[in-house]
């Protein structure tokens, strides 16, 4: 139930509402839980409400994580 999905703001409708897109789906969301949202911002949407702006990923390298985890587990 704590699923939240990134959306891009397409249009600000009023101070509480915006139109946002995730994939091919556009829907109205509430923006009163976050400050200073603008058209083009990426936001995380949970239960119809934007709960945070999304910043760029750290760019952490994830590809070799499996090997590293196995390696570390074996070190115990």
């Amino acid at each position, binding site marked *: 139930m*704590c*699923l*939240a999905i990134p959306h891009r703001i397409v249009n600000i409708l009023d101070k509480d509402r915006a139109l946002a897109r995730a994939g091919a789906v556009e829907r109205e969301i*509430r923006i009163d839980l976050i400050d200073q949202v603008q058209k083009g911002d990426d936001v995380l949407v*949970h*239960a119809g*409400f934007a709960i945070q702006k999304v910043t760029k990923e750290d760019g952490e390298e994830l590809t070799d994580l*499996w090997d590293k985890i196995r390696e570390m*587990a074996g070190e*115990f």
Partner: protein
Amino acid sequence: MSFKTMRIMEVCGTHTMSIFRHGLRSALPKNIKLISGPGCPVCVTSQGEIDLAIKVSEKEGVIIATYGDMVRVPGSNGSLADRRAQGAEVEVVLSAAQCLDLAKDNPDRTVVFLAVGFETTAPATAATVIQAKRDGIDNLSVLCFHKRVPPALELLASTPNCAIDGLLLPGHVAVILGHEPFRFLPEGHGIPSVIAGFSAGEILSALMELLRQIKAKSPALESRYASVVRPDGNRTAMALMDQVFEHTTSNWRGLGPIDGSGLKLSEDYRSMDCLARFDLKAEEAPEPDGCICGRILSGQKEPGDCPLFGRRCTPVTPVGPCMVSGEGTCSAWYRYGRKGEL
């Protein structure tokens, strides 16, 4: 050679689902054991709370509105879905804000929002309540069963013989609360704790940080979900929650009553409190016969230990809430194989 077994609890039901969906449980080294914690809001809603919702649905002129899974959770005598089949009005909403339109469209009815969920979901209820008051919508009330995650973790961490070597902390609760409310876990209880996102990569990255802490014997609070979790959380959302709610004792399925772990409407919004409106009180009710959801939610048992699992209790004929919710541990085991070995 045998290595130490590490028991890592994923607190959040959305993590449980993601872990199963990506087959992580079966692919992990055998000595890393992932256990599911009390992080599915539907599953931790107590039997007494479900019974109360059903009682409200029997009131004249009431429309119950709630999130999808709640409708199918069996109370002591049937579910809200059963009540709907008997003629009660039960609406599924995707957002608390939909209740505002529902109330406006039905001025001669009372819309009761059955509000469940943790700190991720509670701010949406708070914003809805504030707007209802501002717009003078007086036929909307809230049956408020929101729960707070940190007090439940405090209880788990302080249980004698707590056999949790590390915690994958719920990323979206942390989006709202930030880092601080979780700091007591490593600093007070010595439990390595990492705030995690929900993709396979984000979960693995958090697991790796947990292993590092366990190995180095240096418990700390770390976040591996920095794209949305700010150290100080979402202050606007927290301020709205503070305005609308106060802390109260809440009864968790499997964990029992926990002081300060629930949210109820504060004095200024009491007129929207469904319990006050109908003069009702939450009463405790025993869990369904044979269902061990409680012990599963506290990490002591696995669904396979339940004699009803896959027999009398399946997603089509659920006995307990852990089989109803898509994020419930029993439901995940049922759908993805007993040990997630698909």
